[in-house]
């Protein structure tokens, strides 16, 4: 994940007069004494009954205060922690200098969706974990994510929202499969190079997991739509209700003039645990639960899609998906919304912030516990689950301690709804429609260093290549693939012109 730091480049840039001056306005000692700011949050007992965004954003004063904490380091290690190499000190110093739109420009150099990343990146293990405050001063890292969000939001609300510069249209048609962060990024980048880009999306709405998965209270749909709109204005075409491999094959599309493709079909296939009773009514996958609520309006009166909103809801799992599901269940009116997780809180893969928010919202945690069977009434409706306690053994391949069942520790919990959030597998549709495409044993698509698959002209990135990963990694893949596709297409053009 970590990139090489081109120290020379950043050192030279840092020497710019305005940065020099800014640094000298305040002693480093005074900067390190500034207390770290905290995000303004909605009251937990108000927000757990509504869909309003939990993090309300920073005030200008808070943002400026935090920007002064950043030391504009000679070797800005924070950049190494960012998968797309955001020029962190530069954007923060523009902010400190009061040029917020300038700061936004810096963000957009490497990241086409900063308002989204500022909200959902696991910053505490990426950029912020590599900040000098953490590495050398055993303090808390600069609040890079919060600042990124502040700058991007400010830009959206106050900037001229001009679309990025676009090269002369070259008439070369490129197809993108999937409109999640990977697909959106590739589309935006290729549009800048002048390509004629069409994004095909299987669902009726755009955004992938950003829309159907991550809930409104964490990432408002209006923000996702704003970004998609910008990409539309850059000339990218979007076709919904179109499943590549089903509605039309790659060969069909090639005969319509598409010369290269980027597959960003995501990791949409939910895993189940294959334990008795898992198919009773009331046991659903997190994808089903979140899709019914986020994409289909389930639970709102004017929408036709039903959703099972239980009184006693258990979510099985400890990742972001589990946290989103449990907090959604609470908002749908659950009296008890419980996480059942087989390891301890320390090993939970969910973002620290989500776990903290969940605890504040009166989510219950039953850790070191795993379900072993579900029970139902005479109509097949779930009414009880049997769980077993777990101990922790030696670390496994993932470096986390392996959970071991404790014999005789089984007990029952009354539930009327269970949401399974134990991971996803790659979406299989593309692979099924193209048996010749090389995949790994996990059924993810194999790519080379330019993100090209075993089939020339076919590129891939995001979760379909990585398995369930993150928004920023999907975007990073998109950027890399855009260069790969550009090089590939230019070679084709050259070959044709000879």
């Amino acid at each position, binding site marked *: 994940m970590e990139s090489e730091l081109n120290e020379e480049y950043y050192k030279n840039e840092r020497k710019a007069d305005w940065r020099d001056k800014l640094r000298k306005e305040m002693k480093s000692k005074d900067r390190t004494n500034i207390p770290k700011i905290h995000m303004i949050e909605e009251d937990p007992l108000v927000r757990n009954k509504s869909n309003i965004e939990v993090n309300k954003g920073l005030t200008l004063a808070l943002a400026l205060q935090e920007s002064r904490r950043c030391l504009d380091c000679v070797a800005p290690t924070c950049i190494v922690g960012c998968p797309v190499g955001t020029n962190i000190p530069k954007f923060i110093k523009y902010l400190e200098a009061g040029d917020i739109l300038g700061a936004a420009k810096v963000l957009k150099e490497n990241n086409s969706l900063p308002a989204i990343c500022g909200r959902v990146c696991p910053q505490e293990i990426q950029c912020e974990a590599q900040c000098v405050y953490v590495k050398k001063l055993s303090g808390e890292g600069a609040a890079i994510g919060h600042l990124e969000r502040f700058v991007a939001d400010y830009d959206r609300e106050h900037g001229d929202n001009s679309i990025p510069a676009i090269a002369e249209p070259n008439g070369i048609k490129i197809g993108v499969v999937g409109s999640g962060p990977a697909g959106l990024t590739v589309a935006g980048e290729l549009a800048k190079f002048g390509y004629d880009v069409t994004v095909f999306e*299987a*669902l*009726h709405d755009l955004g992938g997991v950003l829309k159907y998965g991550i809930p409104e209270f964490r990432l408002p749909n209006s923000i996702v739509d704003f970004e998609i709109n910008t990409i539309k204005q850059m000339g990218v075409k979007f076709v*919904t*209700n*179109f*499943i590549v491999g*089903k*509605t*039309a*094959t790659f060969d*069909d599309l090639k005969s319509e003039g598409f010369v290269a493709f980027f597959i960003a079909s995501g990791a*949409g*296939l*939910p895993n*189940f645990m*294959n334990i008795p009773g*898992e*198919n*009773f*009514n*009331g046991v*659903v*996958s997190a*994808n*089903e639960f979140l*899709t*019914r609520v986020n994409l*289909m*309006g389930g639970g709102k009166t*004017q*929408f*036709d*899609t*039903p959703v*099972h909103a239980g009184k006693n809801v258990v979510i099985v799992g400890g990742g972001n998906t589990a946290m989103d599901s449990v907090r959604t269940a609470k908002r749908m009116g659950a009296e008890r919304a419980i996480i059942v997780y087989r390891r301890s809180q320390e090993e939970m893969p969910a973002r620290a912030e989500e776990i903290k928010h969940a605890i504040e919202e009166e989510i219950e945690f039953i850790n070191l516990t795993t379900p072993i069977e579900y029970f139902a009434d005479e*109509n*097949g409706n779930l009414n009880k689950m049997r769980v077993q306690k777990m101990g922790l053994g030696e670390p496994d391949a993932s470096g986390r301690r392996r959970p071991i069942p404790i014999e005789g520790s089984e007990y029952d919990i009354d539930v009327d709804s269970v949401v399974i959030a134990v991971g996803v597998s790659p*979406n*299989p*549709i593309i692979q*099924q429609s193209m048996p010749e495409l090389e995949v790994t044993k996990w059924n993810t698509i194999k790519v080379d260093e330019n993100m090209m698959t075993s089939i020339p002209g076919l590129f891939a990135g995001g979760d379909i290549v990585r398995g369930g990963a993150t928004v920023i990694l999907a975007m990073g893949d998109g950027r890399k693939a855009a260069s790969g596709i550009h090089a590939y297409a230019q070679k084709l053009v050259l070959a044709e012109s000879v």
Partner: protein
Amino acid sequence: MFKIIEKEFLSENVARLVIEAPYIAKSRKAGHFIILRIDENGERIPLTISDANIENGTITLIVQRVGVSSHKLCSMNAGDSILDVVGPLGTATHIANVGTVLCAGGGVGVAPLFPIVQAMKLAGNRVITVIAARNKDLVILEDQMRAYSDELIIMTDDGSKGKKGLVTLGMEEVILREKINEAIVIGPAIMMKFAALTTKKYDIPTQASLNTIMVDGTGMCGACRVTVGGKTEFVCVNGPEFDAHKVNFDEMLNRLNAYKAKESKCYREYLETSEAVLN
């Protein structure tokens, strides 16, 4: 938007809709289905592609009014548009010349059965079709079925048309009379359960096309899961057809009721609105 080109009622509660969907018309095969969403507030409902016309770029759907969404759909007319149609979904029926094929359809299951009857006939099979309905007014696609069947048997619960009795009775008569190499059964889950028990008695390989609850239809949610031979399968990507003798129909019947209470309530409320009364 997907425009409705033609619409007619085949019986009181069953409508036939021809819809403009050129890509789907071109790539669909027997056994495939689509998922549609009527409008912004609509749910996604799966419907089999009953027929298609590549030249005109249209697909034909046959839909039975059973709840809010199917009722709304049956109330639409030629010239109206459906917001979202996606497909073709599912795995196509395995069509081969196997000898004699027994095709049995109950209720609106007759609609999805039609493209299979057609394909089986065109593949050179002897096709015997049994279609069943509660009474003569509910019998659909009789002429179309007859055109592609060597023999068509009609069964009604009340004997108002064809023979009196359930679909299984008609099936068993044929089975006792001649050698059947393969059977295909499509209809309400309860009908498929008993049809499968009937063919099992005589060891006839049988496919059933399962109409489970679905959301996305692309393998993303797992709402459509059923147990087949002890293994969980997603109907939308690995089906909709499965070995009928291995399907756990009792579990499927239960799962179809997952949202029953809410849906019935919505439907009652909807029927009281002016919109439904007008149609």
